[in-house]
């Protein structure tokens, strides 16, 4: 039953899994980029 269900909605499920990885992967990369390119003054300004 589950197999039928998954088979019929495989595109939707693939979309969910794709969105999951893009969301977390994208945020991880973006945060990494932001924190590694900040100048000392930007760190200070961010501390407000």
């Amino acid at each position, binding site marked *: 039953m589950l197999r039928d*269900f998954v088979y019929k909605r495989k595109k939707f499920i693939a979309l969910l899994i794709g969105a999951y990885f893009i969301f977390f992967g994208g*945020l*991880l990369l973006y945060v990494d980029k932001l924190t590694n390119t900040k*100048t*000392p*003054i930007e760190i*200070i300004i961010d501390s407000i």
Partner: protein
Amino acid sequence: MKKEHIVIWTLFLFLMFVFCVEMTSRWLYKDVTLEAGRKSVEVLLGNADIYNYSSFTPHPYMLYENTPLYTNSYQQINSLGYRGHEISETPDKKTIRILTLGGSTTFDGGVENPAKTWTAQLEGIFNHKGYKVETINGGINAATSAEMLSHYMFKYRYLSPDVVIVNLGWNDTAPLYFKDYDPTYSKFRRWGGLSIASRVGEKEILQYSYFLRIIYAWWLGNPKLSDLILLPAEWNTVKPSMIMQNVKHNEPIGFERNLGVLLQTIITDGAKPVLFIEPIATADIFKTYHDDWVKSAFSAMEIAYEKDKAVVRKMSKKYHVFLIEMPKSSIPISDFVDHAHVNEAGAALKANFIYQNLPKNYLRKKYAS
């Protein structure tokens, strides 16, 4: 497949997805958000007062001040609100007390170690040469002469400094970037308390959902400096061509007034003011430092700085105040961390230059007795 089975499996898959997202969010919360956003979420959850987390604290008269005991990698503020080690409000009678006034270039935002700011290094040089000197870093990030004047009036003068090194001018270029320049800086500054208040149910949902915390951390982001004190709101969105136009049109009347009152008050207090003009980087800095907006507005900023430097020279003559002016390229580009701030080596150059040029008779008063 029966309809009820479809509903059950859809619900099951949905819950599994939510579970996975929640678990991942919980696991990666600190890695996928910025500290500032997490702070905002903590405030919303009622776990923190926003000002406990901020390096600036609003003040009813001084606009804002350094938050006592705030610490991060580039800020180590003591219990009295000055960068560096603890100090006594009452000076030691046999020690010359030098107070430095200025913005982030005095706070030394490019120097991680508070013992390596130019203010701190100046103390080290004097004491190494046999003087008994204590320096106090009165730098306030983003401060103009208006904040420095109010800080001196309400707070700094009661430290009874013997010498006050006034390092102002760079932040006072900013009010000149905008139209409708007002010498009281009312078009540039405002009072603005920061507030983040939760709406009905928000706190409860955030208590359990780390996924929502991630969303909120990015949504609320970081209360910006402009939210607290700056106008026009997003100052770095002003077109560089407009900045050039405004800088050419506006004259730093407010800076001249503030600096004049500040110097007169320091003299009246019996301290010796010293004016210090520091160099900023040349345009070569943009080969290594990347900020497109600053780069495009830099030539206008330089014109504004020249106007402010002319005011400092004028005030020096008017009030017979000793002026120490560092030549433009006396700090190599490699010692700048951005267009205005220096690293430890740059701070050492500033400290040495001030040591060499500061009249030594300014330090004699207490040794004579």
